[in-house]
């Protein structure tokens, strides 16, 4: 150990009076006098004895505690993962393209839903073909000629003559027939 190292050790631990005779001899040899030793001791002790040192501001601790609360890890650490910028960009592109494809596949035509209630149906379309049963008297003309000879003229054709009672259809029958045909076509 160098002399300076030894003296420093003694200075920080012992006063001159507490030194052993060998130590005192050593100190006097190195420093010259006991008062020099005490003077050097006083320098360090003077600093340690200071009482006017400031105390930490209580606000500092509060600020630090607040900072710690902000830094506290959450219950779900996955939300605090640090993701590189390029990964974020790729994720955004990926989800955007998925959304775009999904939007394209589903029909975008949105027709307003109209609920129309109809209690009466009017059919304007008439049936294409109407079969009408009709009794044709083959020999009606001969019979009429026999019983009503004076009534028959050349203007009346035998085909146009139709029996009123059995073959002709009046208006009521016509309506009924149409109703029947309509319901049949339904």
């Amino acid at each position, binding site marked *: 150990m*160098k002399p*300076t190292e030894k003296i*420093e050790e003694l200075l920080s631990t012992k006063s001159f009076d507490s030194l052993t005779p060998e130590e005192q001899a050593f100190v006097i040899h190195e420093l010259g006098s006991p008062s020099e030793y005490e003077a050097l001791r006083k320098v360090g002790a003077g600093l340690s004895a200071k009482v006017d040192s400031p105390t*930490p501001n209580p606000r500092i601790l509060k600020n630090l505690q607040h900072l*710690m609360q902000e830094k506290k890890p959450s219950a779900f650490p996955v939300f605090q993962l640090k993701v590189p910028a390029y990964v974020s960009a790729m994720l955004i592109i990926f989800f955007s393209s998925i959304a775009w494809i999904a939007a394209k596949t589903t029909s975008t035509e949105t027709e307003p839903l109209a609920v129309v209630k109809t209690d009466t149906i009017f059919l304007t379309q008439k049936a294409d073909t109407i079969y009408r049963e009709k009794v044709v008297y083959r020999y009606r003309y001969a019979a009429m000629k026999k019983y009503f000879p004076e009534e028959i003229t050349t203007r009346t054709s035998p085909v146009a003559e139709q029996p009123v009672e059995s073959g002709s259809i009046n208006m009521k029958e016509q309506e009924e027939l149409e109703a029947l045909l309509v319901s049949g076509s339904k």
Partner: protein
Amino acid sequence: MFFNRLTKKRDEELMHLVSQGNERAMTELYHRHSRNLLRYFYRMLWKEEALAQDFLQDLFIKIIESAERFDTNKKFSTWIYSIAHNMCKNEYRKRAFRQALRDVTWVEGTEDMTHRRFEEKEFQRALDEALETLEEEDKHLFLLRHETEMPLEEIAQILDCPVGTVKSRLFYIRKKLALKLHSYHPVKE
């Protein structure tokens, strides 16, 4: 009960808890070191209390923010005083010009002091002024030893030099200061 357990833990264990977001561990560390660190900053930063308080807060913010990077195998006090020293160094660089002016002022002041006797209180005031004239590294070393009462081994770790070198340097700083404060303790030849 929880606080009692924390008080028994070493600084390094508390730092590990701080890195996990444990607020109480941080509070315990603060209570252990804040007073000494504030005194250290106060001395190092020209006894400007507001500045020292700011530095204390900034230092603990740095500790909290870089808690994950702390190697728990190393000593906490060594790490924290290294950071504190670097902060002071930066401040010194900022104020290099102003510091030079302070030195000049002090030299002028000491001329008068040699002709006066001071009591104990005045001696301490003179010691403060003498400290201001020290080189930054010397002041740092002297304050670590006598203001924070740090063991020599820890100081050696902070300064990255052998313990013997620390002792020698401390001795020479003492001598330098004693010489400046010569008028307060006249040496009998």
